[in-house]
């Protein structure tokens, strides 16, 4: 069982996303530990990309801030190596395929293994195109996290579920990332559809920001993912975000069913 799947064993996870290099890489290192200490069970680290087509305004802004700090992949790897010994939860990268492609897949996943990264989420790499990286990732024991959306057909969902690794990222609603006050998708039935085909855990993301949503979704799913709301706290408090981040995450973790 992969380190990611293992983490879901017998418990529901609160999954936190933050962008590497926003507001600065030393702060990212600190905030990863803050999120972990506040109870996040898995942490997604964004690698900034110039044109993040699956992101709403909040995370787009984080991409721009990180790139304006000239963040490079090797800097992110260096930062992760430095905190590696203090990390107890699985870490996954979330980024677009081009930075990985240009860096070189083999070199990239070799570095992931060295840094203690357990998986990657690549929103612009749908199931059909995963051959691009899947065999290379296997060599380094890194999971590819596949997304399922409310528009995924039953047949696609089945294919994705049967080939899933780590966990399945269920996109809660149409559109891009960003806080939504109301999510109307029938999460329960999609999770049930996925569970028919796999034992791999399912986590729900996109639009989640409030404890009530965490309480609701974690009734059916194995985890709940929050990105934009966390990035917004970092955007607002900058270098002083540790305390509000910690408080926010503790509240969200408490709400897990």
């Amino acid at each position, binding site marked *: 069982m992969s380190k990611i799947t293992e983490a879901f064993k017998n418990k529901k996870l609160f999954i936190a996303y933050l962008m590497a290099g926003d507001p600065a890489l030393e702060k990212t290192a600190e905030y990863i530990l803050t999120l972990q200490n506040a109870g996040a069970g898995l942490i997604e680290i964004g690698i900034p*990309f*110039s*044109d993040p*087509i*699956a992101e*709403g305004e909040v995370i*787009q802004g984080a991409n721009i801030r990180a*790139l304006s700090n000239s963040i*490079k*992949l090797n800097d992110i790897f260096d930062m992760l190596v430095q905190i590696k010994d203090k990390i107890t939860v699985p870490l996954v990268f979330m980024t677009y*395929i*081009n*930075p*990985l*492609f*240009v*860096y070189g897949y083999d070199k990239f996943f070799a570095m992931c293994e060295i840094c203690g990264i357990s998986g990657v989420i690549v*929103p*612009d*790499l*749908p*199931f*059909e*195109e995963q*051959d*691009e990286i899947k065999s290379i990732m296997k060599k380094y024991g890194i999971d590819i996290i*596949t*997304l*399922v*959306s*409310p*528009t*995924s*057909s039953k047949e*696609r969902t089945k294919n994705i579920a049967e080939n899933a690794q780590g966990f399945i990222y269920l*996109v809660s609603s*149409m*559109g*891009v990332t960003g806080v939504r006050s109301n999510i109307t998708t029938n999460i329960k039935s999609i999770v049930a559809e996925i569970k028919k085909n796999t034992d791999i855990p399912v986590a729900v993301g996109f639009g989640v920001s409030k404890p009530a949503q965490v309480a609701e979704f974690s009734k059916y799913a194995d985890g709940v993912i929050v990105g934009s709301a966390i990035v917004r706290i970092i955007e607002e408090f900058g270098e002083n975000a540790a305390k509000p981040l910690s408080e926010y995450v503790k509240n969200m973790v408490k709400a897990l069913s």
Partner: protein
Amino acid sequence: MKKGRYGDFGGQYVPETLMKALDELEQAYNNYKNDESFQNELKDLLANYAARPSLLYFAKNITEDLGGAKIYLKREDLNHTGSHKINNVLGQVLLAKKMGKTRVIAETGAGQHGVAAATAAALFGMECEIFMGKEDTRRQALNVYRMKLLGAKVNAVTSGTQTLKDAVSETMREWTKRIDDTHYVLGSVMGPHPFPEIVRDFQSVISKEAREQIIKAEGKLPDAVIACVGGGSNAIGAFYNFINDKSVRLIGCEAAGKGVDTPENAATIANGSLGIFHGMKSYFCQNSEGQIAPVYSISAGLDYPGIGPEHAHLHKTGRAEYVPVTDKEAVEAFDYLSKKEGIIPAIESAHAVAHAKKIAGKMSKDSVIIICLSGRGDKDVAAIARYSGENIDE
């Protein structure tokens, strides 16, 4: 398993949310592309609404002036709405209508694709929203107003470089919000499969006509076909039916802006490298970290950091040549064609004219060049005036 490949290029690199829409589109297109009544409806629209076939005009004055190859202009500028964009848009909007969609969205750079999309939406009674980089709404204010007159909502995109690249990203984002009733009328031979194929097929009418017209006029095939390339829709349209005619040189002209050795250009083949972006594997202007570069051209329509995957394949296999043309050369060609032939070309098309100027004189008098004149230059008049240091009221 991998769909829509041109050699190493192409593919479907998009968020999961869009896969349903792409699958639906592919199925619908496969159904209608061989459907006689659909094709007849489209033919009728092209003939009676868009004014096809477009003329293949023998440019006698510039032929004499350059003193070499006979130069013909494929006059896509004479189409309704003033560019080749209408060919693709009529096809796609008709397809969207058949699919039961009620709303279309589109990106636009110079505004020609936006105007064409707004036109077709008006014709078919569909809701229309256009995404255009804020910088481009300023450069092409006339076209923005034209779209509004046609009933479209124009959204100025403020992310990134506020140009075509960001308009494409924003239209993709918008599409993920509403795929059930909305079709994304992609404007070039780029993006995820099946768009490069659909747009190419709808644009291939250019070379289908040109091939027949030149054989009728000259009794032989041309020696060269020249077209400007941003994403590459008019170029693939102009090349497509000549690809198997190995004696015909296919030449794409990319925007070299202030020069390929400066940071301000959009010459993807000259300066780009292999990457994956906007749904496709192709060549892109990017840095060593895989970040897409902010590109530049005087022409908003060529100001795109990538090139369609079929062009990437034609380049890699050596079937087509891609050459950079600077702003300065394009502006000179714009002026040249206007004064010599009384035809004001789009600044995009002027890139192709500029290259013809370079090579025609070196070719023999019995050789033939076809230039795809992809659009007319009305929209560029104010920009050209600004470039020449003159301020005119639009």
